[in-house]
């Protein structure tokens, strides 16, 4: 009885002086377990990504990690992220030769030689997490949306599989999951970033060619990076508000 009253007083005291989220965290600390990010607030974050083309070595780690993490079908046309290899004649960047064998899942078998007057490089691609997404604008049922923290997500229970968004995305980042006939795309590992982890692709990237960025966090090194580097987004003329910034991007990349 005495014990119960003490518990009651302690609990009401915490409720009085702490917010609900802080109390949850406090209880988790008392129990000695890590809390499942009870303090995550969507309004505190604005997610994006930085991709440094000059660092990408085309190992395909991101592609494999993404498929593993997000249970993406192994079919060679289902990718939440993939890597493209560009082979560009130095004087003719209008017509690059682009290939992406199985999205880079199995790496890139050597195809080109040095000294043929061309440049060759890898470009990782993923959902650009646009702030003004064409795909969101065309969805007739509200099955895809920009979350308050700046991630374009899919509501699988609402998706009709009408494929409007697949056509609307200027970057080709969406596909139809053959198992469910609903659309799927990069969620920027929403289940990870909301728990304080980085995305699976960034976790697996050995050269830090891709780095998750929280544009609302003043301590995130992204701000310093954007100040000191000349970056570009893909297809800026589409005014999609892309938040995937590419460093060292060649003009031939589409």
């Amino acid at each position: 009885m005495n014990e119960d009253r003490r518990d009651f007083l302690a609990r009401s005291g915490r409720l009085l002086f702490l917010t609900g989220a802080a109390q949850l965290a406090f209880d988790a600390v008392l129990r000695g377990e890590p809390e499942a990010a009870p303090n995550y607030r969507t309004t505190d974050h604005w997610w994006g990504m930085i991709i440094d083309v000059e660092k990408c070595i085309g190992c395909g780690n991101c592609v494999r990690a993404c498929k593993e993490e997000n249970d993406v079908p192994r079919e060679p046309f289902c990718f939440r992220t993939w890597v493209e290899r560009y082979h560009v004649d130095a004087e003719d960047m209008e017509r690059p030769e682009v290939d992406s064998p199985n999205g880079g899942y199995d790496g890139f078998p050597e195809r080109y030689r040095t000294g043929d007057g061309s440049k060759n490089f890898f470009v990782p691609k993923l959902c650009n997490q646009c702030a003004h997404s064409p795909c969101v604008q065309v969805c007739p049922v509200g099955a895809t949306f920009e979350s308050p923290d700046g991630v374009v997500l899919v509501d699988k229970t609402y998706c009709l599989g009408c494929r409007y968004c697949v056509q609307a995305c200027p970057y080709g980042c969406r596909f139809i999951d053959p198992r469910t006939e609903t659309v799927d795309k990069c969620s920027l590992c929403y289940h990870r970033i909301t728990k304080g982890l980085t995305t699976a692709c960034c976790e697996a990237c050995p050269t830090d060619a891709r780095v998750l960025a929280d544009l609302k966090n003043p301590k995130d090194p992204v701000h310093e990076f954007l100040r000191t580097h000349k970056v570009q987004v893909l297809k800026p003329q589409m005014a999609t508000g892309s938040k995937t910034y590419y460093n060292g991007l060649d003009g031939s990349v589409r």
Partner: protein
Amino acid sequence: MSVFFGHRGHLVRMAALFGVGVTGFFVLQALFVPKDFGVYGHYRAGALDDNRARPAAFAGRAACVECHSDVPDAAKGGRHETIRCEACHGPLAGHAADPTEKKAVRPDPRVLCARCHAANVARPARFPQVDIAEHAGQEACTACHTAHNPLVPPAAGQPGPAPGGTVPPAETPKGETK
């Protein structure tokens, strides 16, 4: 005019039908549209939690070093220092949750090392890369290199390490995210 008023019945019936239609619409809407639709925008607010519900397959380095604290020490100052554990060892959240039941598998160095270090024209020139067959023959990479700190110090009287090895490590302006 008289024709119009003489057929008042038609208007009343039409209005009644319209009323039933509108009421029916709102009743069906209340029944079928989830309560949380439109809280943040034109979508179901619960979809955010649905997206968060997926379990993570990659545990993250912080979880790895809780037990394997010797590895960061071994990699310190080396070329592989900043690489996260699961970049090479694969997703191991299951192992992190239950280390006795789920064992991590040691990767095959001939396959693993080649993924990054096999020569490829499209790779940045400053990245260390070799023709595997020419560089190592049939030997396993780990016969000479330590995986966690791969640079082989040059033997006395020998030139520097293998091609690419003389290049300074890639700068990491962004460093770690976590």
